[in-house]
């Protein structure tokens, strides 16, 4: 699988997920600025 790492200055890739508190999170509508932290394995 060939993935493209986004660069500073580019539009953030959009996404929509349901958070574990039940909130619908759609990046395009989400309050900003927002930091995104992608975890590795939980531990």
């Amino acid at each position, binding site marked *: *699988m060939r*993935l*493209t*790492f*986004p*660069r*500073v*200055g*580019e*539009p*953030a*890739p959009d*996404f929509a*997920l*349901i*958070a*574990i*508190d039940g*909130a619908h*999170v759609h*990046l*395009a509508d*989400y*309050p*900003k*600025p*927002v*930091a*995104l*932290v*992608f*975890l*590795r*394995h*939980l*531990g």
Partner: protein
Amino acid sequence: MRLPTVMNALTAYDAQLLVFSFATEERLRQWLPFFHRQFLEPAYAERGLALPPDPFERMRFLADPSRAVYHAYGLGRNAVWRVYGPRILWQYARWGVQGKPIQINDDALQRGGDFVVGRDGRLTLTHTGRDQSDRPSPQQIIEALG
């Protein structure tokens, strides 16, 4: 990520934090109290800071087991030699000495990353580390939020 410093910056810039895991929602829910107890509380205690009443106030946790969002942000799998290289083994050793449990129940090769989305929807920070110990500094995150 130095949590207390970053959390203060979130408040200062009226910013939010979204935390993604590729674990299932159930597993992520189970992990949160563990994270609070084993990492968040000690991080504040080490700095002599009181834990905020709601340390997760500006945070939301999202499960992405399909890794669709991980992949949208270019986060694939790491090479084995990067995951188990000297730097991360040293970090595991430090955690072991500090009494922090080391549990690896998931895909240890999945890459993590840190991004900041500015008010205009464009990225102001992009970072994927060489290994688990390689995360942006609090100063880099603060500058990206501002």
